[in-house]
Structures are given as structure tokens and as C-alpha cells.
């Protein structure tokens, strides 16, 4: 994986993106603004599932009419997110917050998969006014908590507190970030 990141970082477009004065901030702004489309609109789908907003609309209608806008935001998010990663691949790959964010996204994806599978099986009952099962409320709440975590950890990627080139770090940090620390070199530098 590290080799792939290093290889990406040496490609022409990666260097161009990183060094560009305007492209990087514009992509970053688009990435941040797509939060509104993706997570902001998903918020209302989840609130519907929790019975907080749009309770007069059938859940199936929220999923057909509102969720696609959220998925449009997700696509924008992934596209701009990939470009941001592509501009700074090695540092991102070895960034503890980036790794945590990816794990949270995987959990959120699993949660969404479980919800849609459940909806396929028993969703028709929810529209007929029967009460929505607690497990659906729980999945909607989990979605909001996980995506909030993604926003928070995503914001933290900008900080280099735990970067590999800032040693010494606690052992667990180097392990979690996948840092390759040359102790001999460090000893030389610190005169140990």
C-alpha cells in the first residue's frame, strides 16, 4: 500500500495538483461544500427514519426522491476526496486521522447496507403506518453518529501532530499510522 502511495505521489498530475496555487483550494472547497449535499440531505432521510421530520411522507418516498440528492453529494465527495488524496498520497496514507476516517466510512457503508437489506425485506410494512422497528431508528442514529465522526476526523487530517516525520511519537501512534521509523538515524539526530 505504501508503495502505491509513493508511486502515486511521483506521478505528474499528483505533483501538479499539490503545487497548483488554485486547484487544490478549489477542490478542497468543493469537498467541504459537498458535505451539505451528502450529509446534510442524508440527515433528513435519517430523521424521517427516526420519526423526527417528514413523518407524513412514506419512507419509500424519502428513499426514492430525497436519497438520490444525497448520493449525488456522495459522488461529489468521493471524486473531490480522491483528488485531495491523490495530491498528497503518502502523508494522507500515513495520517492517523485519515485512517480512522476510512474505518468510519467502512462502518457507515456497512450500516447503510444493513439498512437497505432490511428495507428490502420488510420496508413495505413501514409505509402502511405500522410502527417502524427500533432497529431502524438505531441504524439511522448510527448513520448520523458515524458521518459526524467522518466530518470531525476528516477535518483533523489537516493537522500534522502525529505525522511520521515528527518523531519521537508514542509507539501506538507509529503503529497506527504505519510509520517506518529509523531508530539509528533518530539516535544520531538526537545525539543519544
Amino acid at each position: 500500500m505504501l508503495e502505491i502511495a509513493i508511486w502515486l505521489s511521483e506521478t505528474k498530475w499528483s505533483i501538479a495538483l499539490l503545487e497548483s496555487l488554485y486547484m487544490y483550494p478549489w477542490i478542497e472547497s468543493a469537498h467541504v461544500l459537498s458535505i451539505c449535499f451528502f450529509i446534510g440531505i442524508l440527515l433528513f432521510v435519517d430523521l424521517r427514519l427516526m420519526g423526527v421530520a417528514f413523518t407524513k411522507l412514506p419512507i419509500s418516498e424519502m428513499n426514492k426522491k430525497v436519497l438520490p440528492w444525497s448520493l449525488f453529494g456522495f459522488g461529489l465527495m468521493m471524486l473531490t476526496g480522491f483528488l485531495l488524496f491523490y495530491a498528497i498520497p503518502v502523508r494522507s496514507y500515513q495520517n492517523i486521522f485519515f485512517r480512522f476516517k476510512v474505518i468510519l466510512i467502512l462502518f457507515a457503508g456497512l450500516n447503510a447496507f444493513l439498512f437497505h437489506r432490511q428495507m428490502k425485506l420488510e420496508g413495505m410494512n413501514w409505509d402502511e403506518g405500522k410502527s417502524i422497528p427500533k432497529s431502524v431508528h438505531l441504524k439511522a442514529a448510527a448513520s448520523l453518529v458515524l458521518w459526524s465522526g467522518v466530518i470531525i476526523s476528516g477535518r483533523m487530517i489537516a493537522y500534522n501532530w502525529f505525522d511520521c516525520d515528527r518523531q519521537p511519537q508514542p509507539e501506538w501512534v507509529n503503529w497506527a499510522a504505519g510509520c517506518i521509523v529509523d531508530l539509528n538515524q533518530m539516535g544520531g539526530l538526537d545525539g543519544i
Partner: protein
Amino acid sequence: MESERLFNFFDQLEQSFIGEAIRNSIWMFPVIEAFHLIGLAILGGSILVGDLRLLGLLLSTKPINYVISQTTLILKLGLIILVSTGIPLFLSEAIKCYYSRAFWIKMSALLIGLVFLFFIRNPMGLSAVEGNTKLKLIGFISISVWAIVAGSGRWIGFS
């Protein structure tokens, strides 16, 4: 003369207890900033759902007033989170904001956006059932103004 008084005022804000505390901490600014982004998601989503309805692009068979009424409470929640995190962020770097063009663009757009939201967009949206050209225009103006607020807000950090 005016601008000197304004600068001194911003300088005092920067020296405030809260501004000082945030500057002296490594993690406070990033954490407040992260919650500012969560507020952005909440406000942005509420604005988008309402404005896309006004534009006739989302839930277009449902009454406009229903969609607007269902998003207003969450919109206010997002606004409260944004303002209560935005003020400490501002206090920690008031002088930088004073010299930042993006900051002044954002504040101007924010003022316009809030006035437009509470005096035009919401009152009209809450009394409308079906869409028309005028309501589409209102949705378009609203979405544009808030995009400027969010976009120039991000740009404060680049300057």
C-alpha cells in the same frame, strides 16, 4: 478614522479571554472548527432541501409549505451550532479576519442570507403550496447566497 476604531475593536476581541484561550491551545481551534463543519452540514442540508423544493427539483409533488416547515427547526439548530462555534473561532483570529477579504464577503453574504431567509424565503415558502417562477427565483437566490457564505467561509482559512 472609522477603520481605526474598527481595528481597535477587533484587536480587543482578539485579546479577549476566549480568543486567548483558543490560541494557547493546540486542539481547541481544530475541534471547534470540526463542530462548525457539522453545523454547516445541518444548515446546508436544511437550506438545500427547502431550496431544491422551491426550484421544483425535489419532492416536487409535495406542498412547498410542508417541506419548508419540516426543515425550519433543523435549520435553526444548524444556525445555532454555526454561530456558537463561529464566534469563538473568530475571536481567536479577529485581526486576521479584519484583513481577510473572504471574511468580509462571508459576513456580508451571511447578513443578506439571514434577512432573505427570515423575511422573504421562509414567509413566502410557508404560505405557498405549489411552485411558480417567483418561488423558483427565491430558491435560486437563497441557494446562491448560502453557497457564497459557505465558500468564502472556507476561503478564510486559505488566506
